[in-house]
């Protein structure tokens, strides 16, 4: 009987990828907290996860009809969206709410760690099965 790693690891192998992508978007928001005109963004997590799970990106492939065309690697990633600001106007067009972003970043990294510890325990179960330890 073969071990199916895909089944053994469950959803968590995909969530860590999606979580790290979300961490990136939130880090950019925090970095640009003082940049005039910057609009805060976040990801649609379920869309991101679906994308990671299905292995299918929503990328739009561009057909090159001429050798001299630049290979366009453009992907219309629909999962990154702009956040609706809580405050109507901050004066400089910036929509980053630093409290919200910091909390979201912290929450996201904790969820990342949760997924990692789930994966770790799955791996140790598999290791035990492979080694045949009773302990």
């Amino acid at each position, binding site marked *: 009987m073969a071990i199916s790693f895909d089944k053994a690891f469950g959803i968590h192998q995909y969530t860590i990828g999606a979580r790290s992508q979300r961490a990136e978007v939130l880090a950019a928001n925090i970095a640009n907290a*003082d940049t005039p005109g910057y609009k805060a963004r976040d990801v649609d997590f379920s869309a991101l996860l679906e994308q990671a799970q299905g292995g299918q990106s929503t990328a739009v492939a561009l057909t090159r009809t001429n050798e001299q065309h630049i290979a366009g690697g453009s992907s219309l990633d629909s999962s990154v969206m702009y956040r609706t600001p809580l405050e109507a106007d901050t004066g400089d067009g910036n929509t980053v709410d630093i409290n919200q972003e910091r909390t979201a970043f912290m929450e996201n990294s904790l969820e990342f760690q949760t997924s990692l510890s789930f994966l770790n325990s799955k791996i140790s179960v598999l290791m035990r099965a492979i080694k045949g330890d009773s302990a």
Partner: protein
Amino acid sequence: MSLFQIFDVSASAMSAQSVRLNTTASNLANAESVSSSAEQTYRARRPVFAAQLQDALGDGTAPQGVEVKGIVESKAPLVKEYNPAHPMADKDGFIYKPNVNPIEEMADMISASRSYQTNVQVADTAKNMLSQTLNLGKG
């Protein structure tokens, strides 16, 4: 692994905030730099932040770092003071003081150092997330 990009983004924000701290330090240091003409007087400096330009072929969803576009001088009026006894006074007895408001500068300094701190924390969290991923399955 996209977590590596967080380091670039946070580092750009940290350097932008340190430019802001530098200009604040320069403004505070020169707050009392008196001169005898309006042209020679020190003017408060402010950095201009902008989100880093996107890759032209990108989709506009890539994370953006912070870019310092440049440093501009404040357009606020200088302080012209009648003080004929001052050694720097011009022929009419006026001295010119910089348009630096120390209270404003102090508030800006605190804001810059807090933002810097936040970005250090973000980079630190990203580092922890990465090292935990690297240690996956070890224990």
